[in-house]
């Protein structure tokens, strides 16, 4: 993916920056320019304001991926999930720092800032959100390389990110 293509979405991918419709109050992630909920779509134009998700969430469904997406080959098997946030939106992302067998629907998770994938040895490194368990799991957290979940950083500094 070109540098510009990834870079222009970094505020969303780094900081969970979504939006909220000031007409009806519905929250969206990723942000949209038109509100699909409002009965009069045109009136929502220009009325969607930035809104940051808390990063909290719960697993709605998941899979353990063995045939990786491009750039994720070194991470198999990995857990991919759809996570429902308390603000409303559902996000697709990996669950890390848990044994795949401990993945379950209903698991409470928290967004964390990580390295997503890299384009070869000399290519661009993509960062963004993944999720870690926000409650104890059966096997503990053997994959964890830090003392606790890393909160989503307020800035888009990439330093210290882990995959």
């Amino acid at each position, binding site marked *: 993916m070109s540098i510009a293509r990834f870079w222009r979405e970094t505020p969303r991918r780094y900081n969970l920056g979504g939006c909220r419709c000031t007409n009806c109050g519905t929250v969206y992630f990723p942000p949209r320019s038109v509100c699909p909920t409002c009965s009069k779509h045109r009136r929502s134009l220009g009325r969607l304001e930035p809104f940051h998700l808390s990063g909290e969430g719960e697993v709605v469904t998941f899979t353990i991926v*063995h045939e990786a*997406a491009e750039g994720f080959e070194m991470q198999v098997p990995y857990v991919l999930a759809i996570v429902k946030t308390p603000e409303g939106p559902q996000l*697709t992302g990996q669950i890390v720092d848990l044994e795949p067998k401990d993945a379950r629907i209903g698991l409470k998770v928290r967004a964390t800032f990580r390295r*997503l994938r890299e384009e070869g040895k000399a290519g661009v490194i993509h960062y963004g959100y*993944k999720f870690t368990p926000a409650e104890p799991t059966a096997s503990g957290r053997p994959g964890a390389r830090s003392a606790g979940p890393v909160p989503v950083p307020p800035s888009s500094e990439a330093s210290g990110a882990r995959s």
Partner: protein
Amino acid sequence: MREVAILGVGMTKFGELWDRSFREIGIEAGFQALVDAKLSSGDLGALYLGNMASGSLISQEHIAPLILDYSGLAGHHLEAVRIEGGGASGALALHMGYLAVASGAHDFVVVGGAEKLTDVPDTEANRIAGATADHEWETVFGATLPALWAMIARRHMTEYGTERRQLASVAVHAHEMGSKNPNAHFRNRVTLEAVMNATPVAEPLGVFDCAPFSDGAAAVVLGPLERARKFTDTPIRIAASQVACDTMALQHRRDLTTLDSTVVAAKRAFAQAKHVPADVRVAEIHDAYTISALVALEDLGFVTKGRAGPEFASGAFGPGGPLTVNTSGGLKAQGQPFGAVGVAQAVELVRQLRGEAGDRQVAGASLGLAHNVGGTGATSVVHLLERVN
């Protein structure tokens, strides 16, 4: 709007056609359909070509005039248009051909579907197919098409108690039907155990839960029903042609176990045709993954929501029942050359409705349904085809 009939059908073998080029298979299917329709190319008004990703797969865009040219028709200067809607590209092309004839814009048109997937390695084909999901908000985070469908499967299993072996029964059926289809990519039978113990792709789905990447092409010739008797004794009427769309990403769906696009397209199609699901005797449904077939049977109205697993496993949709699905072998066994799939579904239905389906013939079939999906359901297309007596 005029009534539209399918006058001729044709298709290549599906599979790993390493010795044949994209243009060769496109032309073969098209001419088979023309010969079957007893039309000459001079009668044609337009070509609509369903194709998902020729640019990525064979580094060739602008393929509709390419096929037209190598069919010897460049000098006729026909209208030739490529149509793309992910895995639903073929049925979308059929829809566009239907509209062109129904509206009176053209009298006779060829609708083709063609895809060449094996000119790139499997990993590359996976990446290209994954682009039919939302690249920015699904694939970038590690999603693949099988992973997304696996998450639909997991949710379906949790909400409705659908079992792993019920998913597997879809693949067993597909291979059984494929064994009777000389054009099928896979003609071998498989056992339930083999499907369940296959290498995992995205749990709970394994290799045998996923349709293969195939090369292949299919074509149909359409014309006004009122003139169809001149060309054939068994014209097949397009009783309904409906397209419906939904959110691009799975995460934004109203319900993760329902494809609302399929529900809506089917409702519109049955209303257009003045039929109900119980009238359908033969159906080609989009079984790109075993779970896709179960969800489709529910969303099309053939079975109550949540009941497709046990019903399928009990043989309710096999030969001899009130409705037989995927007599061609479906995407799973006949093969999955993306843009050709939706057109090949129509080819199989026409053969069934004419009584020309050989070993896999469903006795007395007069109404057939075709269901084609793009991505995880951002696009669904439903056609109803009916024999005219």
